């Protein structure tokens, strides 16, 4: 049911395998519901009340209310689904990516303009530990 363990050595990366998919099912289905304008309005009007429609865990609901983008992924969210929450908030993919890296928006944009995050030093968790 899980992916091969080699994936676990890739730093800063969660693979959306069956286990995560089951864990995050309702969180992701909530995100997808925001594709309908009427749902976006209801969610914007009262987020906590809207979330009750989706039987997720309290931690998952809180991560959404906190807009804690990394936490959502740790709790089974998938980036393509959480991106719909970002879109509902008027945030671009680049804006939430910067938030997830812990960099400033300007710093992240600058990194991208200079060719992005290099692969050297970012292949293996062992490289991050050393850094």
């Amino acid at each position, binding site marked *: 049911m899980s992916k091969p363990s080699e994936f676990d050595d890739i730093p800063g990366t969660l693979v959306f395998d069956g286990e995560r998919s089951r864990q995050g099912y309702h969180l*992701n289905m909530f995100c997808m519901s925001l594709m309908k304008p009427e749902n976006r309005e209801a969610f914007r009007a009262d987020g906590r009340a809207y979330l009750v429609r989706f039987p997720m865990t309290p931690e998952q609901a809180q991560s959404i209310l906190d807009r804690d983008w990394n936490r959502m992924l740790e709790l089974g969210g998938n980036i393509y689904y959480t991106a719909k929450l970002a879109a509902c908030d008027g945030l671009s993919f680049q804006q939430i990516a910067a938030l997830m890296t812990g960099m400033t928006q300007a710093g992240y944009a600058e990194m991208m303009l200079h060719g*992005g995050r290099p692969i050297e030093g970012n292949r293996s968790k062992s490289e991050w530990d050393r850094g």
Partner: protein
Amino acid sequence: MAEILAGVVCSHVPAIGAALDNGKAGEPYWRPLFRGFEPSKAWIAQLKPDVVILVYNDHGSAFSLEMIPTFALGCAAEFAPADEGWGARPVPVVEGHPELAWHIAQSVILDEFDLTIVNKMDVDHGLTVPLSLMFGQPAQWPCRVIPLAVNVVQYPPPTGNRCYNLGKAIRKAVESFDQPLRVVIFGTGGMSHQLQGPRAGLINPEFDKRFLDRLVADPQALARIPHVEYVREAGSEGIEMVMWLIMRGALDDTVKEVYRFYHVPASNTAVGHMILENVAPGAA
């Protein structure tokens, strides 16, 4: 008899669609990117394909976690642009080619590909951004489009080898269709990008360029790359490149590279683009 004339690979970053839709294509950030597609727009305007088979992945727009098809072929008469959370893109409705799509579906299922046939599906940026890049902003798309949605969101995606062989089966299907249609196949997504978590923004131009080289000259070697290598080297969403192998499998073993463009950045992503022609179009 229908014929596949050429293949196009092309990234499908949502920000590219937003830039076009919001009139920002002329801004310094975006100008180099759109300029890179000018030769391609001229090329396809001259080629005038009747049908584009567009291989892409749905990003949790048409398919939810309720039902996750590995390969889903769009057999409907039309496909509306999806609302991905900020309203649907202001682009034309996509007209399908039900006769050819059903013919392909039947042929590849009998060739033992376990297709899902889809008759109702909204299409997200994964499909509409490549159309915008290749055709600009017309009032109506200039050709029919058959969407082929590949799962690369839920692990595991199909293997590269499976994608490559599906391309071969699609080619066989197209060539057994009894109308003289001119077909181009698009492989979209990639190149290196990671959208999630602390490693977001990863770009690996060496991997990307070598991928483009091998896509031309040694696709069989590419088809053996395991999923973990895409994720490690090209980022968690770089896995989308596996779809390019479907396009490549549908072409001749030997192809002519007529155009290549590589650009960093578009939002979080490297953009790769290439046009490959079958060496002897019309001779098949």
